[in-house]
């Protein structure tokens, strides 16, 4: 049986903060950066600490694999093997930097665009693609990986993360919840309720906004008049960071610092990562209708993998054979994804009824019998 922590959780009673200054909560005016677009040390590191070479190499490796997975999934969609695939090409540093910063006991709350983050967290690719292949709404056991189902309505997962984190505090179990959301989701009411609840409860939550500039077709200027999305934290008493979302080292360091802060009982952090969605919203979208091609080109020049590769090579941690080895590993991963998608989809009419309730109701059993009889008639 669950027992509540002996120690009092951080106070959530209505108290006046000792420090009424809002400045301490505000993000920097320009994004924090550890490695710039040319692979040179960033000029605005703030308090972020650049991870050591082992972590940087792992960030690089997982981004290369993630990018290859993303390309493979896009190709499978064009072949009709996946119902839909929202690409995170360009947001690779956010996807991988955020998940690698988590500890084993922490939870990830991803959205539909975060398949690479889900893979990076260790979910088997076949299980991860179950949603987009149309087999089932979530193909993995969230408890096994500590990864919530991918959220397709926006921002609703922010509240689930806050609740899970609040429970961790009450139980004294210590896990932190990282929730991923986009620029569009910051307009949803649930995001605001989640920021507010998390601050009042001092819940161990990290909000990572991947600001990729567009909510499907709607640009940020039509989404928000806030100076930055990170600036929204101050209204709720949530300290905020603005980081270069194409700098995997900065994303990792920011999420890591926020996770450690949360684990110390100091409450939530809002991180806005500035990045860009290179592909259209999904395969069903035509991005040329709402954004200029030269904008995409300019962001291709800020590629997260290229810059980390340049930095690691210049620092002597990476060479051509090592790069070739990572790329070969990514190819193997893509082959595995293709093999999985060549297998027959695992769907069962029975499953329609199995999980609606803990035990199917009499009425559902009646409907199940009817459906199975109907199917037997079609294919005796």
């Amino acid at each position: 049986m669950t027992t509540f922590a002996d120690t009092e959780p951080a106070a959530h009673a209505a108290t006046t903060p000792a420090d009424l200054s809002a400045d301490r909560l505000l993000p920097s005016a320009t994004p924090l950066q550890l490695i710039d677009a040319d692979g040179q040390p960033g000029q605005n590191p703030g308090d972020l600490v650049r991870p050591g070479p082992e972590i940087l190499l792992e960030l690089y490796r997982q981004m290369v694999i993630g990018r290859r997975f993303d390309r493979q999934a896009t190709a499978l969609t064009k072949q009709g093997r996946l119902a839909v695939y929202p690409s995170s090409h360009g947001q690779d540093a956010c996807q991988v930097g955020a998940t690698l910063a988590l500890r084993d006991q922490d939870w990830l709350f991803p959205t539909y665009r975060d398949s690479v983050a889900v893979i990076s967290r260790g979910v088997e690719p076949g299980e991860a693609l179950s949603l987009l292949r149309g087999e089932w709404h979530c193909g993995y056991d969230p408890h096994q990986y500590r990864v919530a189902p991918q959220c397709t309505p926006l921002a609703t997962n922010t509240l689930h993360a806050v609740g899970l984190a609040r429970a961790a505090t009450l139980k004294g179990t210590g896990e932190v919840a990282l929730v991923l959301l986009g620029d569009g989701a910051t307009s949803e009411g649930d995001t605001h309720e989640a920021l507010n609840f998390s601050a009042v409860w001092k819940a161990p939550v990290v909000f990572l906004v991947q600001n990729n500039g567009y909510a499907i077709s709607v640009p940020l200027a039509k989404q928000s008049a806030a100076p930055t999305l990170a600036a929204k934290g101050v209204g709720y008493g949530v300290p905020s960071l603005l980081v270069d979302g194409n700098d995997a080292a900065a994303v990792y360091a920011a999420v890591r610092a926020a996770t450690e802060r949360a684990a110390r009982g100091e409450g939530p952090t809002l991180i806005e990562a500035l990045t860009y969605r290179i592909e259209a919203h999904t395969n069903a979208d035509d991005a040329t209708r709402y954004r200029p091609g030269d904008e995409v080109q300019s962001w291709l020049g800020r590629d997260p993998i290229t810059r980390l590769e340049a930095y690691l090579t210049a620092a002597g941690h990476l060479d051509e054979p090592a790069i070739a080895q990572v790329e070969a590993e990514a190819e193997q991963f893509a082959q595995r994804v293709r093999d999985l998608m060549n297998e027959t989809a695992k769907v069962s009419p029975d499953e329609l009824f199995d999980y609606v309730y803990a035990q199917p109701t009499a009425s559902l059993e009646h409907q199940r019998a009817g459906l199975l009889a109907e199917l037997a008639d079609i294919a005796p």
Partner: protein
Amino acid sequence: MTATLPVTEETSAGPPAAAPVTMAAALNTALADSLAADQRVLVFGEDVGTLGGVFRITDGLAARFGEQRVFDTPLAESGIIGSAIGMAMNGLVPVVEMQFDAFAYPAFEQFTSHLAKLHNRTRGHVELPVVVRIPVGGGIGGVEHHSDSSEVYYAHTPGLRVVTPGTPADAYRLLRQSIACPDPVIFLEPKRRYWAKETAVLTTDGPAIDRAAIRRPGQDVTLIAYGGMVSTALEAAEAATGEDWDVEVVDLRSLSPFDDETLTESVRRTGRAVIVHEASGFAGYGAEVAARLTEQCFHYLEAPILRVTGLDVPYPPPQLEHLHLPNVDRILDAIARLQWDDHA
């Protein structure tokens, strides 16, 4: 209201004695007993802590169980339901309060897209044993947005259980059953009956969470009611004896799932049925009941199944609500229209 409550199986020193108890007190006792019995249970919502809730259903619980287990939240219903989902994912059993029926609507997405579906979405890996208590219905002179009958919004959503008690003893039983249930349960409390008393022993013994209860046996007609209309139906049944109609009153208790077995048996036996609810009739719960019973009892029916419901209007202001709500006379009128003369 004070927390001087009847003894229960957890706290009694000897055999429990029947005592007069209001529905409000029975609900309070059910919450207290659940909090005492299971460390995973939490109670939270707007004003439920220090104040004890605007209807005082949670009175004294924060003082007794501490502010880690019974606490006030910010004023945001989606936040309450959404965070309850996250807590349940992490092994707790949240029992949350929506302050009024119509104030739950900001949480609609969390109810329908997440609370109802997460167990199914994850092939049963994630259970959400969340109970959402919602005071519903009219008859208390409430101003706008304080008197809605919102049951079908929830009952239409697969994955949610929807229950509603009609009596104080059943309020205790059904709430304990709801908190023990692994599925999310929408627990609708008929606020006009909060202060109705019944002499009863509070116990979990009795019909299971998904079963209806025959409150008054009868032979001529099955009068089907739930929540706040159960006692109105019993009054009508009593008045009907003056017309020589022997009315059976069935309290549905569970709106989802629907207890086909009990209802079908009753209607096949009586051959006539009237459904009564406060909610508007159009696409209301009574339509589902009438359709199911027609499908299952057609050859036993002596007359069309009739509905006595609220009007198809937005809930009226207090000075007019008596015109909207079903009452004994309207129920008797409906019974009178069940084609008795055809067999005279």
